[in-house]
């Protein structure tokens, strides 16, 4: 069923909550090895539910999910998740936050040190290694969370609106860093976002979801070069792409807020 290069596949995936709210699907999706895939959709359409089932954080009501050819049942090895909310550990300083997963995995100290130093440098946190999250801005804390995911060298990185709480300038710069991370690690990335421009700027493909229960109603291929950054927003093609995403999404967004398109 899946294409030869599919890294993760979802087939007929639905999620119905015990309250009988039909949150998601049916969804069919192939995430290709090494691609940057974004999901946009109206509020409450099931984007985060999609991420949860793909990450193995919750089980689908029906359908199958596979990561690297194996069925997903619990969070698989090689999957990293960055959440929208600040998930830094307030009681650990930045370097201990970043080293958390490695220590849990029982890695030897020298390797932990090497990886943590690399991640701190990569995320621009080297000067804050001994600072505590309370001393950092929201954007810096989110960097800590990304660094904590990055050190584990995940092959699939799932991000649930990681920049949702940040201001626009910081979002653009964090987007650049995310692109750099994606290029250098070769990981497959799935980004959940409500920002059309963010999705258009960062992605190889953008999936547009319908209002609840969320299904894909459009898949846009961006054709951006792999070496890209936030300056792409001045490309005319960026405007066209954003306009296309919005025309796919407008009617669904109006449904989501209870208005007829």
């Amino acid at each position, binding site marked *: 069923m899946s294409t030869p290069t599919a890294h993760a596949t979802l087939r007929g995936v639905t999620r119905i909550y015990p309250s009988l709210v039909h949150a998601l699907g049916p969804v069919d999706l192939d995430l290709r090895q090494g691609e940057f895939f974004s999901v946009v959709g109206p509020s409450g359409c099931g984007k985060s539910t999609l991420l949860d089932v793909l*990450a193995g*954080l919750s089980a689908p009501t029906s359908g199958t999910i596979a990561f690297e050819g194996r069925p997903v049942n*619990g*969070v698989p*090895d090689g*999957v*990293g*998740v960055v*959440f929208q*909310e*600040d*998930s830094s*550990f*307030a*009681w650990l*300083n930045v370097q201990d936050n970043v080293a*958390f*997963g490695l220590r*849990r995995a029982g890695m030897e100290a020298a390797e932990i040190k090497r990886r943590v130093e690399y991640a701190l440098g990569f995320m621009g946190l080297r000067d804050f290694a001994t600072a*505590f*999250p*309370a*001393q950092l801005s929201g954007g810096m804390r989110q960097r800590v969370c990304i660094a904590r995911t990055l050190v584990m060298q995940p092959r699939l990185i799932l991000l649930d609106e990681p920049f949702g709480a940040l201001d626009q300038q910081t979002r653009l710069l964090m987007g650049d860093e995310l692109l750099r991370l994606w290029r250098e690690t070769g990981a497959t990335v799935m980004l959940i976002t409500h920002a059309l421009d963010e999705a258009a700027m960062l992605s190889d493909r953008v999936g547009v979801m319908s209002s609840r229960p969320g299904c894909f109603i459009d898949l846009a291929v961006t054709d951006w070069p792999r070496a890209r950054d936030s300056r792409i927003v001045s490309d005319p093609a960026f405007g066209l792409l954003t306009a296309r995403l919005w025309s796919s999404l407008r009617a669904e967004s109006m449904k989501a807020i209870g208005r007829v398109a």
Partner: protein
Amino acid sequence: MRGVALTRLGVIAAFIALLEALCRFGIVKPLTLVAPSRMVGTLIDLIQAGDVGDDAARTAIEVAGAFVLAILLGVSIGAVIHAIPRLRRAVAPVLVSWYAVPSFVFYPLFIALLGLSEAPLIAIGAFSATPAMVVATISGLDRVPRVLRRVARVHRMGFWDTLRHITLPSALPSLFTGVKLAFAYAFIGVIAGEFILSGGGLGYAIAYAYESFETAKMYALMLLVLGVGVAVNAGLHTWEGRLLRRRQR
């Protein structure tokens, strides 16, 4: 901060000086109140003569027992109540109105159940202190952000690992408030229990001195109890500050 601390010391020193003056100039009679300098002198004499060691040791054991028991019971009961929302809705009114219950009315019951020994005093101390720890535990567990539990699952941590590395550190500020309150209630419970019915301990020694008109001894022992209470609280406060200093949001 230094200024505040100095002002605090100044207020205390002024109060002590006022007491000293009132006693020295005979405004307050020695049978009512002895001068602070005499309280300290008597206390030093008592300690040197070895007259308080046994009572102090007995009280220390009882308070420690009540305190540890209250923490163990409080955390366990709090965790169970937190885990079962239905139970929580049922017992929440009881927990918040616990302080309206004068726990000493149960003291005769504890004596009947446990005999006239240290055990009923430990029980009364724990009985007074446990609810504070239960409430603190529930509130601490409430404050563990849901996203951190999800992070634990992404790191494929089991129940005990999550408890140790995520839940406990995250709930620590609330738990520590519970620990401080639990000590205070255990201390009050034990001392008061010794007052009412006991054959030893600092509370008993104070009551005994009172009944035999040994005013200086009574005040010296009261000073000791006050000093120990303040010292332990200050120690807990410092420890808390050290643990939590850098994580305040």
